[in-house]
């Protein structure tokens, strides 16, 4: 009898203490996705990565030729290499490695205006894979199933910036077993393989930190967007760019005072995002854009207008609870959709966005910090372990076709 009384008393005190803690006004909320509460996991000790030593023509020489590669939105591949070289998960003994990383900078061939040309990337990748398969036995052991590659280009390993051509090419056949770490993500699309890890595009963290304004500046803009609506250079007829969604936004809302949208390049772009409640993140030529990263860092709720898009770290971050998804065909009703969201839901989304681990997970800071995008990538790789026994192939099971693909790709690089 006395024992029950004690248990009851302890339970009462415990629940009282818990309710006290919950009553404190929290202005952030914990984030847990479909894989559980994994944003703050530490990958050290959970996996080992071996970094192949490739000749510098695959990486350093490209960067020396054009240092702009460090600043554009595809710079994640370079920073990932640097991070892995000095990370505690790196091992110098390939026998104990779980994952193998090939440091090739496939998006570092830039036009004078700074856009990457992917035409040589398949040849470069093929040449690198030929090198590692001949110098080390680990590629042939599994045909690349325990290797991962960072391909941050528009359509990932399809290596083309035009969607139709990218779909025609498909993912490079040599990479069919490997894990791809890419920014592109769209369901039921040729260029997104099963088991790929979607990452955010690179956005310069220092630049964004330098433009922070005080948190109590009231958010007075309802919807904010800056960018193109029509791409007259590449799509003069209209209707191709963004599948007409951006143009629909402009035509429907250009004189709506709630929508602060234009093609200007203001110097206060980052500050304005911090004064807005919703930030539009519509697709462009590809469904992903650095706007998502900027919106998350600045606490502006992202309104994602891209059908079937797969957002970064989708298993670790519950994007449906954080952003607003609008189908492209519903764009004319965007104002109705956004104003009919209840304020409680909006405040909750803002609380989730205010979570510092959420902001950290979207960034690639130098030097790396715990919980940042590098660590999320490693966590994602760790969650795929252990490799299934079937990846270790016997000679009779080798299926990789080394000569598949357009003839131009077979030329040595």
């Amino acid at each position, binding site marked *: 009898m006395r024992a029950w009384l004690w248990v009851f008393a302890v339970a009462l005190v415990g629940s009282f203490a818990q309710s006290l803690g919950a009553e404190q006004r929290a202005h952030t909320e914990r984030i847990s996705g479909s894989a559980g509460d994994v944003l703050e996991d530490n990958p050290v000790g959970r996996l080992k990565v071996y970094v192949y030593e490739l000749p510098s023509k695959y990486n350093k020489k490209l960067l020396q030729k054009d240092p702009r590669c460090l600043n554009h939105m595809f710079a994640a591949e370079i920073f990932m290499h640097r991070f892995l070289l000095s990370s505690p998960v790196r091992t110098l003994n390939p026998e104990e490695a779980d994952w193998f990383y090939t440091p090739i900078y496939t998006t570092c061939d830039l036009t004078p205006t700074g856009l990457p040309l992917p035409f040589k990337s398949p040849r470069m990748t093929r040449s690198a894979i030929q090198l590692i398969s001949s110098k080390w036995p680990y590629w042939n052991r599994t045909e690349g199933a325990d290797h991962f590659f960072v391909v941050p280009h528009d359509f990932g390993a399809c290596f083309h910036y035009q969607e139709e051509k990218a779909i025609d090419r498909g993912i490079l056949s040599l990479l069919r077993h490997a894990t791809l770490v890419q920014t592109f993500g769209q*369901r039921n699309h040729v260029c997104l393989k099963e088991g790929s890890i979607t990452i955010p595009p690179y956005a310069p963290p220092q630049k964004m930190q330098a433009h922070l304004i005080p948190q109590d500046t009231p958010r007075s803009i309802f919807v904010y967007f800056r960018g193109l609506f029509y791409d007259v250079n590449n799509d003069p*007829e209209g209707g191709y760019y963004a599948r007409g969604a951006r143009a629909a936004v402009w035509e429907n809302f250009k004189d709506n005072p709630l929508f602060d949208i234009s093609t200007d390049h203001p110097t206060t772009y980052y500050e304005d995002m911090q004064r807005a409640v919703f930030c539009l993140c519509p697709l462009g030529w590809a469904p992903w854009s650095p706007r998502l990263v900027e919106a998350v860092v600045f606490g502006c709720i992202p309104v994602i207008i891209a059908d079937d898009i797969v957002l970064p770290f989708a298993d670790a971050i519950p994007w449906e609870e954080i952003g607003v998804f609008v189908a492209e065909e519903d764009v004319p009703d965007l104002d109705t959709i956004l104003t009919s969201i209840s304020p409680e839901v909006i405040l909750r989304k803002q609380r989730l966005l205010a979570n510092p681990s959420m902001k950290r997970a979207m960034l690639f800071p130098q030097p790396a910090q715990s919980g940042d995008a590098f660590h999320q990538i490693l966590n994602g790789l760790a969650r795929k372990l252990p490799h299934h026994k079937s990846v270790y192939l016997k000679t009779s099971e080798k299926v990789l076709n080394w000569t598949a693909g357009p003839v131009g790709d077979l030329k040595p690089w």
Partner: protein
Amino acid sequence: MKFLAMPQSHADGQSGALRGLSPADSSKSPAATIFWLAVHAVCCLGSLVLGFRFSRLFVFLLYSTSPMLRATDKTTTYDPIVLLSDPSQSPVNQSTPHVAVGRHGIQVRPWPHPEPVEVMKAHQIIERVQREQRAQFTAKNPNPRSLIVITPTYVRAFQAMHLTALMHSLMLVPYKVVWIVVEAGGVTSETALLIKRSGLRTVHVGFKQEMPEAWEDRHSLEAKMRVHALRIVRDKNLDGIVMFADDSNIHSMELFDEVQAVKWIGAVSLGILPHSTVDESDQAVSKVMDESNSLIPIQGPVCDSANQFKGWRTDNGSPNMLGGATHVDDRGSPLPGKLEWAGFALNSRMLWKHAEGKPGWVRDLDSPNWDNDVDSPMSLLKDISALEPLGNCSRRLMVWRLRVEARPGTEFPKGWLIDPPLGIPAPSKRTPWPDAFPKLPFTENASSDEEEINQHPTENRRHETETAKPQLLRREPVEN
């Protein structure tokens, strides 16, 4: 420009579709092709006559056998007009083509304008978000005190401008505000109408004397008006923090948060504007200016290293800089008083006759000779060390003093509305300073009956301290 391109591309799309259709319909007789050629010729002639491109869409729609245009079938109450449509939407995707590559229509709803109900809802959302922000991020006093704001004013040309600006600042303050407006020359309905729009609790009293012309006399009259207001605070036993907001000053919202920290009497730093009326286009002068005068003159308390009040800093600017106006008519700005009232905040209980904990160093408002001798709230104190410096020991500027008045006799449009709109701005009645304004290009081409403009090359009324070149509203030929 885009809309010009639209019918073009529309026609292109159409012609493409037409061409696409005709081979498929080659099974039709040559009569059909001849018919289409005839239609084409008619349309060309028609567009020649009418003067714009006549879309063949209409004809195509009439006679087309295949349904197109409505790619989406929505059950909503309206059907969006598809701006660009291409029947040859080609899904290139292989497996389950959920999202198609290729040309899509641009959906525009029939009335692409804001709905008032939604605008209201959006504003409510914004308001809720801002409330939450304030609650979370401003380090706030859990029991904010109300503010008692004392403003001396009088009717003049710029009163509407100044009072409206001050009014809006006070309306934005998140605390309760009691606004005491003391008006020189008695209560007028103009001022009453202005302050009624604020929605704040206002106390509007008149003061028997009229506002004099000389700045110095004005300063002393304003001081008397403020003391009058302090007596009202005492008599009505108003509770809160007393602040002095002159109608032409500029207040930052942080000021109102900062004065909540006052215990008895506190002071903030005041910036003095304008800090120069020298013509900056004169390069020699501007060089000298940059070196020595690039900082705004500041008036406020100074602390020692222990953040204790040590003394005053009255960097009131040199007469050269401010133009040293003594009369309202003069061009420059008046020098500020030794200690401007606007920088002070008092606890109203200090003024009450009987208040708990009222400190002994407070002089009574009715003490003899106080009236004539008061030029700042410091005269209320017997012991000046009781002053509390606010605003991080007044290292932050939160209020700026500005004295800008129109010249007496200037006529302003009633209610600040110009009706009918001015085609060519008319000159003011009095000759302004002849060397002030540059020759404006449009005045060369002015019509003959506007010769006066050439002689008095001016435009909008300017107040004394404006140094920027006047902005003109020129009617430029509109190209469309």
